[in-house]
């Protein structure tokens, strides 16, 4: 089964809708929302072991909505989303985490945060050595290691 087939079309629509509510697009920060197609594709392609819980969360969301969540009007969507956050348990937490972990590895999002879109290895990062004279007061204060009898 392909990753896309792990969720039904209705579930995918609801996922896109709730993702946009978690992280909407922003002109101010020049970033897409979590409903962006590339981010949604990443979510669907990497659901893996989270697929069952995410599907359960989306089922819960649809139950709360009483119809496809994506088809609710804005006011009703907000109310259902609030209920989903408070009553969704580990499944809802997994859905939110899956959305955030794909959103915050998107190249456009990372660049907007001033971060390089790359794996840590092999380039690593530069860490300033810092001002070790800060330790002088600790050395001056000294102290005594508690001795054992």
């Amino acid at each position, binding site marked *: 089964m392909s990753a896309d087939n792990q969720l039904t079309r209705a579930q995918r629509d609801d996922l896109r809708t709730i993702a946009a*509510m978690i992280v*909407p697009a*922003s002109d101010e920060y020049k970033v897409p929302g979590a409903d962006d197609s590339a981010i949604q594709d990443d979510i669907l392609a990497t659901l893996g072991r989270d697929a069952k819980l995410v599907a359960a969360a989306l089922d819960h969301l649809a139950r709360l909505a009483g119809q496809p969540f994506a088809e609710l009007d804005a006011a009703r969507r907000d109310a259902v989303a609030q209920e989903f956050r408070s009553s969704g348990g580990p499944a809802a937490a997994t859905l*939110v985490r899956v959305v*955030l972990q794909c959103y915050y590895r998107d190249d456009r999002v990372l660049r907007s945060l001033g971060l390089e879109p790359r794996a840590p*290895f092999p380039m*690593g990062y530069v860490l300033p050595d*810092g001002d070790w004279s800060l330790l002088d007061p*600790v050395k001056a204060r000294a102290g*005594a290691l508690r001795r054992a009898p």
Partner: protein
Amino acid sequence: MKDPVDVLIIGAGASGAAVAWSLAETKMHILCLEQGGWMNPAEYPSTGRDWEAKFYGEWSSSPNVRGRPEDYPINDDNSPIKVVNYNAVGGSTVMYTAHWPRLHPSDFKVKTLDGVADDWPIDYDALTPFFEENDRMMGTSGLSGDPLSPLTHPPMPQQPLGLSGAIIGKAMNKLGWHWWPSDTTVATMDYEGRARCINLGHCTPACAQGAKSSTDITYWPHAVRAGVELRTHCRVREITTDENGMASGVVYYDKDGVEQFQPAHVVIIACNGVGTPRLLLNSASNRFPNGLANSSGLVGKNLMFHPYAQIYGYVKEPTDSNRAPPTCLWSKEWYDTDPSRGFVRGYGVQFVRGAGPVFEAVVSEQKGILPWGADHHRVFRKLNGHRLGFSAICEDLPEEHNQVTLDPVLKDSHGIPAPRIDYTISENSRKMMEHALARGREILETAGATDICVNSPIPWGGWHLLGTARMGTDPSRSVVNEWGRSHDVKNLFIVDGSIFVTSGGVNPTSTIQALALYIADQMKQRLANLFD
């Protein structure tokens, strides 16, 4: 039937590697059975763009979440602190923070000094040469001369202070409290074939650079070259005994799942504070109906975790975020007993530099400080890259009701009964944690932090698995003697964290390995009369 080996070691983690390397010079036939395999650094999380996401799945610190074939399940439902570990060549040194304090001399005399728990049957001085040897083998970095810690001589300089360290240092100086660069097992220069740290940051779930010391890249290459045989993907089910009550070997499942028997003249257990009692209890027989080496009834009892009291907040200045090893500084300001605090013993502190963007987003959303909707972006930019953390490692005192037993239902993939954890945080620990959180809050507020959050205890913080086969001179009150040999089975040794009598308030791996080297040395000195 296989030929017997002279020494059979169960577990290739921190202590198994150290004892194997030390005993190798005897030229005995030494075999180590490890349920995991060799790690491939090319597959470590920090090599991929999904480096943070992996921590929630295949690289989770919890074996129950991770669920690799090499893992065994643990029923820790009845514990506020969940067990975390790693099963591979290198064991949990593959997945740890590399923070490297050691027990203090006073930690070995808790009963004498503070009237609680028990004194160890050995003292700090007995371990001193083995601490030094282990630091050379693991390759430590740090700054010698901390006035409130035992004297160490790290062969490499300390990690950079970085942005986070400077903020913490200034706050601690304002408050007049002790801080010092941590000893760590992160190589700050090229060392013994290991490349220096390049600040991948995501150190805990394995270091792709090889700068973080783990025994698969330190002890094991030396031990294997010296002739130790390491057989991977072999899960030991039980230790067998002969008609004289001596260990005769082990039954294990090989990499194909086939049951095997390996005879041995000496058996050494190195499975740490959950795996070791599990194995001993699973080795019950007609002669040892309550489990092997358990005439005291203390196998599995006195489990100590170190409840972690964690508090963190966000400063205006940028911090090191995920772009540096997570731990950099420690404090021993509250390590020793002060009766005015309302609890006995104390805690060490490790400061945390920051977190990566995915972790920050996920955790902050769960904590309710990162909103959904239009304000999400503004708040996230205030939080991300601005986190500072304080974690107190609270000394857990031994209590028999905190224990590892065998779960009556849960089994691993080979059908071996899984461990069950029953654990509660004591009143003394709770007071200690409250004290630590109050101090942490003072530090963070002095540093200018806001949006302060607490994890107390850290739920998935059961890194330190101690005390479940304690050492002592009285066979009715301990499982092994003062040099690691079972009181009941004279060719059976335990060298891991389960033999701790008390836990101290520091990460235990340095002390675990020093103990393993000490026990190996004792064995070598007594080879002619090892079983007397």
